[in-house]
C-alpha cells in the first residue's frame, strides 16, 4: 500500500465581500464548500472545471498560501492548515508549486541560477558548492543547460521559462508539486514537450502531482485520477479512464462533449451548456448545477446530491448518476 502524500478533508474557503451597508448581512463568495480528496505517492491527480469553480483557490489553500476557513490539508501526514508562516517554512520543501504564466512567475531581475536556487533557502544554510551542484543537476533534468544559470528570463522562450519554473519547484526534491494550468499559456508543440517532461520527471523522481487544468485532453494524458469541480464542490471524481469513458455527472459529460475534436467531418450532435458559472455568492438548496443541467427535476431543487460511489473508486454527486452511466454504456 503506497502512502498518501496529500489528504484534503472538508476544505472550506469563503471570501467575504464588501458590505453594501452598515447593517446589511455579510455576503460571501463561496469558493470552496467542503472539498475532500487524497493523492497517493507517485500519482497524478487532475482537477478540472470552468473558471470560477474554485480550482485555483483550492491550489492556494493546499499550498498554504492563504488562510483556510475550516477543514484540513495533510501533506505527508503533517497538518498544514492553521500553521504560522515560520512553522510552515521548513515544511515547504516538501510541496512546491508551478504557476500558469511563465512570464509573470519569474523575476525578470534575477538570473536563472538565483531563481532556481531560491527555494533552497527554506532548507537552511547549504554550502555554496552544494547549491550550485543542485542547480546544475535540476537544470539538466528539465532539459536546460547548466551554463544557463547566468542568463535572465527574457532570454528564454515560453516553454523554456516553464522549464525554469519546473526546475525551481523540483530543486528541494519535493514529494508534491501543485501545478496550476502549467501548459495553458504554451503553444501546442511546446505544450507537448512540457507534458512529456512532467511525465518523465514523475518516472524518475516519483513526484506526486496535483494538476489543475481546464483542458480535459491534457488531464487525460497526464493524470491517473481526476476530480471535476463545480461551484466550489467536487461533483465527480474517479480514475481518469473510468470517468472519461462513463461520466456519471451531466456536467462532466457536457464538458467532455464541448471539447472540439480535430478530425475530418464537423458538427456533432450534443447538449450545449447555456449561461456561465453563476451563483458563487449565494447559498441555496439543492444541486449547484440545477440552473444549467439538462436533466434537472424537482428533486434537484430540494435535495443537495452527495458524493456517492457509483462504481468502484468512482464517485459522483448527482441524483441521476445511474441514468448517466447507463446512457454512456449504451452509446
Amino acid at each position, binding site marked *: 500500500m503506497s502512502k498518501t502524500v496529500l489528504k484534503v478533508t472538508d476544505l472550506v474557503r469563503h471570501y467575504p465581500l464588501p458590505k453594501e451597508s452598515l447593517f446589511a448581512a455579510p455576503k460571501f463568495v463561496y469558493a470552496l464548500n467542503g472539498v475532500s480528496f487524497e493523492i497517493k505517492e507517485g500519482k497524478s491527480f487532475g482537477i478540472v472545471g470552468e473558471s470560477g469553480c474554485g480550482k485555483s483557490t483550492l491550489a492556494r489553500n493546499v499550498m498554504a498560501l492563504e488562510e483556510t476557513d475550516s477543514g484540513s490539508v495533510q501533506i505527508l501526514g503533517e497538518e498544514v492548515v492553521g500553521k504560522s508562516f515560520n512553522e510552515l517554512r521548513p515544511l515547504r520543501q516538501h510541496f512546491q508549486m508551478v504557476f500558469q504564466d511563465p512570464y509573470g512567475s519569474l523575476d525578470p531581475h534575477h538570473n536563472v541560477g538565483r531563481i532556481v536556487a531560491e527555494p533552497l533557502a527554506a532548507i537552511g544554510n547549504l554550502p555554496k558548492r552544494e547549491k550550485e551542484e543542485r542547480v546544475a543537476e535540476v537544470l539538466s533534468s528539465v532539459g536546460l543547460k547548466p551554463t544557463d544559470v547566468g542568463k535572465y528570463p527574457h532570454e528564454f*522562450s515560453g516553454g523554456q521559462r516553464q522549464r525554469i519554473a519546473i526546475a525551481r519547484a523540483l530543486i528541494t526534491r519535493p514529494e508534491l508539486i501543485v501545478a496550476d494550468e502549467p501548459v495553458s499559456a504554451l503553444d501546442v508543440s511546446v505544450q507537448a514537450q512540457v507534458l512529456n517532461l512532467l511525465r518523465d520527471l514523475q518516472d524518475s523522481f516519483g513526484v506526486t502531482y496535483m494538476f489543475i487544468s481546464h483542458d*480535459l*485532453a491534457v488531464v487525460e*494524458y497526464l493524470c491517473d485520477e481526476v476530480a471535476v469541480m463545480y461551484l466550489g464542490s467536487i461533483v465527480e471524481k474517479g480514475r481518469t479512464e473510468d470517468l472519461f469513458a462513463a461520466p456519471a455527472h451531466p456536467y462532466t459529460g457536457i464538458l467532455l462533449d464541448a471539447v*472540439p*475534436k*480535430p478530425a*475530418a467531418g464537423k458538427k456533432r450532435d450534443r447538449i450545449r451548456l447555456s449561461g*456561465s458559472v453563476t451563483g458563487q455568492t449565494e447559498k441555496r438548496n439543492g444541486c449547484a448545477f440545477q440552473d444549467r443541467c439538462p436533466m434537472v427535476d424537482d428533486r434537484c431543487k430540494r435535495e443537495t446530491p452527495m458524493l456517492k460511489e457509483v462504481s468502484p473508486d468512482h464517485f459522483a454527486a448527482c441524483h441521476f448518476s445511474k441514468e448517466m452511466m447507463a446512457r454512456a454504456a449504451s452509446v
Partner: protein
Amino acid sequence: MALLEVKELDVSLSTAMGPARAVRNLDIILEKGQTLGIVGESGCGKSMTALALMGLLPENGTTSGEILMNGEDLLVKSEKEMCKIRGNRMAMIFQEPMTSLNPVHTVGRQIMEPLRLHRGLSKKDAFTEAVNLMERVGIPNPSERVRNYPHQLSGGQRQRVMIAIALSCSPDILIADEPTTALDVTIQDQILELIQNLVKEEGMSLILISHDLGVIAENTDKVLVMYGGTVVESGATDQIFGNLTHPYTQGLFAAMPKLGMGRNGRLTTIPGTVPDLINLPTGCTFTDRCPLATSECRNTVPVAFSLEAAHKVSCHHLDQAIEARGEGLYK
C-alpha cells in the same frame, strides 16, 4: 470574382535587429459566405495577416502584394478611405475581450460608435439598435446591460459585446483572431456557435484564426496551415484533416493531446522552436525542425504542389511525407 483575393502578400516589420519578415508570399481566395481557417503556432504570422487585411499593422510594418476586396486593392487606399471600410465592410474580433474594449465607456456606447459613424444613425436610433444587437448576440437583459461597463460583464459576455460591435454594420468579411482562446470550453462552444449562426444568417464570410486544430476542424470550410510566415499546407478542411501531409501539420496534430487517447501513448514533440523571423533560413522555414530535411530543403524554397483539387502542400519530400502518415514522422 472572389470577395477577397490576397495575392503574394508580404508583411515585414522593421526592428532594431533588421526587418522581421512576418508574412511571406501569402495567397488567399475567399468567396462570399465561405469560412476560412488559419492555424499555426505563435509567431507564424496568422495575426499579422489579419492586421494587414484590416490595415491595422503597427507603424513599423510595411506590406507588398495585393489585397483585393471586390476587386479594389486595400493596400493602396489612404487611411481615410480605410476608415470607411474598417468596421463597416470588414470587421474584426480580437482575442482578449477585456483589453479590446474601452474600460471607461459603457458597452452600449461602444456598440453605438460604429453605428453612428458608419451608418449615420442618430443617438436615439443607435441606442435602440445597440440594444437589439445585444439581444441578438445573446446577452440577457440587454436594456439594462447596455449601461454596464466592460468589467461588469463576464469574459463570455464581453466577447459577445465584441461580436455585436463587429456585426453592427453587417460587414462582408468578419475576421475572428483567436476569439475563444481566453474562454472556457463550454463558453467557447457557445461563442463559436453564435459566430457560425450569425455568419450563416448574414451571408458573411469568416476568417477564423486559431491555434486549436479542433476549433478549426469543426468550424471552417477551408484551412491554411501557417509556419514561420508562410503557408505550408492549404485546402478544404476535410481534405486536410483526412490527409495530414506536410511534416509540420503532421507534427502539430500528433503533438496535440486528444480526448480518448488515454495515458498509454506518448505525445509527439517537434524538436526545436519556431524560427527567428529576422534570420530566416534561405530554403524551407521548417528545415531545422523537420525529420525529412535535406540540403535541398535548406537551400531552395519549396513550391506548393497540388495533391488533389485545392489541397496544396509546400514540401520537397512529399512522397516520404505521405508515406509517413501512418506510422508518424517523429520518433
